[in-house]
C-alpha cells in the first residue's frame, strides 16, 4: 500500500508540474489595473458609475477634457477650439480633422449631434446632465467639422458637463448596425461592446463578464499614442486577494483602494501609496422634519459632531474636514473663517438648545431633552456592510447624548435606503456626493435646491429656503466669474446658517502603484488615464 501511495504522489506532482508548464503565458507590454467590481455598462448614454467611466473615458473621446491634474482648466480633445457666446447660451466647437473612430471613419460634427441626441432620446440615468441644458433641437451641424449647441438657458457649467463620459462621441454607423436608438431604452449591445464605436486611445478588446476587461492600444489615435500596448483589468471583488496580488507584483495599479486596508500594504517595498484629495463629500442628511425642523436644533447637532476624532480614527487620516456643500479646491469654494464653520463644541450646542427651549427631562446632562412632549432626536439609516459609516454614526450617537439628543440608528440594505428616506419613513441617512463635473452647481443644485425638488427628491430632506433656491438659480447662469464666485460664497454661508446637512469629510483617494509604473497622474474629476501609464 505504501508503494501505491508513493506512486500516486509522484504521479500527482508530475501532472501538476506539467500543467504549470503548459499554462505559463508570457507577459509582454502589459499593465494590470485592478477593478474591485464590474463596470456597469460600456455605453456612455447609460453608464453612471466610476468603473464604467474609467472604461468609457479610455475608449471614447469627448469634445474637451481637463489639463493634466488641474480640474479648473479645460484642454482640447476632439474640439480644437471653442467659443462661448450669447451670454453663455451658445457653444460653438471646431473639431479636429484627423480624429478617427476605431473603424477608421472620421469623427464629424454629425457624430457629435448624433451622440448627444442619442443620450437625450434614450433618457437613461445620466441623461439629465444633458437634458438640463439641451433639447433634441439644440445641437446643430454648421459644417462637417463645426457644431453649435444652443443651450436652453445660459449655463456656466456647460463646458464641464461636456467633459463627463455621458458626452462621449460615438460612431453612428456602429450604433445603427447594433440596435440603433430606441427611446427610453438601453442598447444592450453597446452596454457590453465597443466594436469601433469609440475614438479614444484604447479599444475595448474583450469584456468577459465578471472576469476581466482587456484594452488594446489604438495605434491610429490622433493624439499621443498610449505607452502600453495592453491594459488588463481583472475584476477582483475580495480585498484580501487584491492585497496579495499587489504585494506579489501581479497587479500594477489599484485606484480607490479601501482606507480600512491601507495598513496591509504599508511598508511594502514594491508599492507606492498615494492619497490625493478628491471632490468626494460625505455628509449626514438631517431630514428637517419633526425636531429637526428647527434651525437651532440643526446648528446644535452640527456643533456636536466629533469631526477630528472621525477623521483620525474612522477615516484613518485619509480625509479632510468638509465645511460646506462645495469641496475644497473647486471653483466657488471659500475657506470659511472660524466663526462661520462648525467645530466640535458641546458647550455651544447645549447653549443653542437651551435658548431654543429644549429642556432636559431630569437633571441636566442626564437622559434626553424634550419640548412640548416631543423628545429631541431623530432616526438615521446606515447601509449594511459599510463599516466606515457605522463607526462614524456610533461616535456621533455617543456625542449627541451629551446634548440630550437621541440618535436612533437603523441598518438597512442599500437598495432600500433611498426609498425609505424619500418616503419620509426615516429622518436622515449617512451618504455623500461624488462629482459629475467640476462645477459647484453640480453640488449645490443636487444637494440644496428645493425649487426643482432635488433636496427632497434625492435626500428625502424637507429643507426649503427660497433665498437659497434663488441664489442657486442666479449662480447657474452667471457668466461673470467674480460675481459667480460671490454667489457661491453666499450659498456656502447660508448653508452654514441653515445647517440642513452635517458635512463631515472630504475624502482622499487611495491609489496603489507598483514602483515600476510610471506616467501616472491624478485629476480629481477624471477617471484614470491609461494612455500615459507604462512600466519601467
Amino acid at each position, binding site marked *: 500500500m505504501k508503494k501505491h501511495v508513493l506512486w500516486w504522489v509522484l504521479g500527482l506532482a508530475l501532472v501538476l508540474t506539467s500543467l504549470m508548464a503548459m*499554462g505559463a503565458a508570457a507577459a509582454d507590454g502589459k499593465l494590470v489595473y485592478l477593478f474591485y467590481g464590474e463596470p456597469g455598462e460600456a455605453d456612455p448614454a447609460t453608464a453612471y458609475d466610476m468603473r464604467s467611466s474609467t472604461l468609457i473615458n479610455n475608449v471614447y473621446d469627448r469634445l474637451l477634457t481637463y489639463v493634466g491634474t488641474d480640474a479648473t482648466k479645460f484642454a482640447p480633445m476632439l474640439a480644437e477650439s471653442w467659443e462661448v457666446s450669447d451670454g453663455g447660451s451658445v457653444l460653438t466647437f471646431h473639431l479636429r480633422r484627423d480624429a478617427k473612430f476605431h473603424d477608421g471613419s472620421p469623427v464629424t460634427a454629425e457624430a457629435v449631434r448624433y451622440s448627444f441626441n442619442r443620450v437625450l432620446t434614450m*433618457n437613461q*440615468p445620466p441623461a439629465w446632465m444633458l437634458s438640463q441644458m439641451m433639447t433634441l433641437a439644440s445641437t446643430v451641424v454648421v459644417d462637417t467639422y463645426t457644431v453649435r449647441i444652443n443651450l436652453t438657458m445660459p449655463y456656466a457649467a456647460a463646458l464641464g458637463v461636456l467633459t463627463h463620459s455621458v458626452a462621449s462621441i460615438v460612431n453612428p454607423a456602429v450604433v445603427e448596425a447594433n440596435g440603433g436608438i430606441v427611446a427610453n431604452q438601453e442598447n444592450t449591445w453597446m452596454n*457590453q461592446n465597443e466594436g469601433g464605436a469609440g475614438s479614444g486611445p484604447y479599444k475595448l478588446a474583450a469584456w*468577459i463578464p465578471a472576469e476581466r476587461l482587456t484594452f488594446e492600444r489604438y495605434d491610429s489615435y490622433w493624439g499621443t499614442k498610449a505607452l502600453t500596448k495592453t491594459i488588463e483589468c481583472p475584476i477582483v471583488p475580495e480585498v*484580501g*486577494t487584491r492585497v496579495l496580488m499587489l504585494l*506579489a507584483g501581479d497587479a500594477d495599479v489599484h485606484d480607490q483602494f479601501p482606507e480600512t486596508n491601507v495598513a496591509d500594504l504599508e511598508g511594502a517595498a514594491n508599492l507606492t501609496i498615494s492619497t490625493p484629495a478628491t471632490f468626494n463629500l460625505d455628509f449626514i442628511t438631517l431630514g428637517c422634519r419633526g425636531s429637526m425642523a428647527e434651525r437651532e436644533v440643526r446648528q446644535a447637532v452640527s456643533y456636536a459632531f466629533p469631526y477630528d476624532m472621525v477623521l483620525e480614527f474612522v477615516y484613518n487620516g485619509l480625509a479632510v474636514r468638509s465645511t460646506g456643500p462645495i469641496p475644497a479646491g473647486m471653483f466657488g469654494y471659500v475657506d470659511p473663517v472660524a466663526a462661520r464653520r462648525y467645530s466640535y463644541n458641546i458647550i455651544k450646542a447645549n447653549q443653542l438648545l437651551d435658548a431654543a427651549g429644549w429642556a432636559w427631562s431630569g437633571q441636566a446632562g442626564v437622559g434626553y431633552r424634550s419640548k412640548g412632549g416631543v423628545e429631541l432626536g431623530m432616526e438615521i439609516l446606515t447601509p449594511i456592510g459599510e463599516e466606515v459609516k457605522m463607526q462614524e454614526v456610533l461616535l456621533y450617537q455617543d456625542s449627541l447624548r451629551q446634548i440630550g439628543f437621541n440618535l436612533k440608528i437603523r441598518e438597512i440594505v442599500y437598495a*432600500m435606503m433611498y426609498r425609505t428616506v424619500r418616503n419620509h419613513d426615516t429622518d436622515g441617512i449617512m451618504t455623500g456626493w461624488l462629482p459629475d463635473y467640476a462645477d459647484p452647481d453640480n453640488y449645490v443644485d443636487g444637494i440644496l435646491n428645493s425649487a426643482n425638488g432635488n433636496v427632497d427628491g434625492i435626500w428625502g430632506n424637507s429643507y426649503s429656503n427660497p433665498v437659497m433656491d434663488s441664489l442657486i438659480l442666479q449662480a447657474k447662469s452667471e457668466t461673470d466669474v467674480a460675481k459667480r464666485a460671490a454667489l457661491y460664497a453666499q450659498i456656502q454661508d447660508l448653508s452654514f446658517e441653515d445647517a440642513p446637512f452635517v458635512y463631515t469629510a472630504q475624502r482622499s483617494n487611495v491609489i496603489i502603484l507598483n514602483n515600476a509604473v510610471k506616467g501616472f497622474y491624478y485629476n480629481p474629476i477624471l477617471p484614470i488615464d491609461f494612455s500615459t501609464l507604462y512600466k519601467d
Partner: protein
Amino acid sequence: MKLSTYILRRAAMLVPVLLGVLVLIFVIAYVIPADPARAWAGPRARAEQVEALRERYHLDDPLHIQIYTYLKNVILHFDLGVSPTTGRPVRDDLKAFFPATFELALCAFLLAIALGIPLGVISALRRNRAADHFSRVVALTGVSTPLFWLALVLQFLFYFKLGWLPAMGRSTIEITRYTGFMLIDSVLNWNWSAFGDAAIHMILPAATLAFYSMGYLVRITRGSMLEVLEAEYVVTAKAKGLPRRVVIYRHALKNAIIPPLTVLGVEFGWLLGGTVLLEAIFAWPGMGRYAAGSIVMVDLPAVVGYTLIVALIMLLCNLVVDIMYSVIDPRIRVGGKRR
C-alpha cells in the same frame, strides 16, 4: 414500473414544481419593501427615468400580470428578461456564469468522490488503526473548517508564499469559448497551454470546495462500510475464500455505496449553490457572485432566472440519484418497492 416510464413521469413533474418556485419568487419579490427601479437607476436618476424603468420592467403591474408576462416570454421566446444591473439579457448572463460554477462544482465533486470514498473505505478496513485515525481527523477537519477561511489560507500559502498557483480567475489565456467550460473549450481549441492554465486556476477553488464534501463523504462511507462488512453475505463471501479485493469491491462496497450515493446528489446541489464566498475570494465569475449581486440590487429578473435554474438543477440531480439507485442495486425498482 419501467425506468423509462419513471423518468417521463418525473420529467413531467418538473413543470408544476418550477411553476411553484416561480410564483413563490414573484410573491416574495412583490412584497419586499424595496424600490428596485430606484436601486437600478441609482440615487441621482431623475424621477421620470425611474418611472420609465418601472414601466419597462412592469413593476407596477399586478402580480398575476407580471407572472403571466414572464411566463409568456420564457415559454415562447426563452426570454428571461434583461438584468437592469448588468444591462445584459439574463439568459446571456446565466449562459456566461453557469458553466463557471458548474465546472467548479463538478471538479470539486469529482475530487471529493476520488478522495472521500477511498478514504472512507480505507478507514473502515483499517478500523482503529493509524489510517483510520488519520482519515477521521481529515473528515472532521473537512466538515468543521469554514470554507472562506480555508480559501484564504490556501490562497496565502500556495499563491503568495510558494508562488505555485494563481490567486484568482479561471484563466489568463484567451480562447474561443464554445461551451463556457474552460477545460473542454481549451481542448476544442486544441490549445494545451490554455488547458494547463485553466487546470492550474481550478486547483485552489476546487480543492477548497471539495474539502467539506470530502470530509462528509469519508464519514458516511466509513459508517456504511462498517455496517456492510458485518453483514452475513460478506462473512459468507470471505468464508468461501473469495479474494479480498472481490469481497470488498464487488460485495461490500457495492452495497455500502447506497447511503453515500444519496448524499452525493444533495452534495452536488450544495456545491452548486454554496460557492458565493469562494467565488468572491478567488474572483471566480460564477453564479454565486451573480446571485449575491442581484439580491443586493433587487435585480428581480436576475434573481428569478437564477432561482429557476438552480431549482431545475436540484430536481435533475435528485432524478439522477434515483436512477442510479436502480442501476447500482437491481433490487430497488424506481417508483416501486424494494424486492
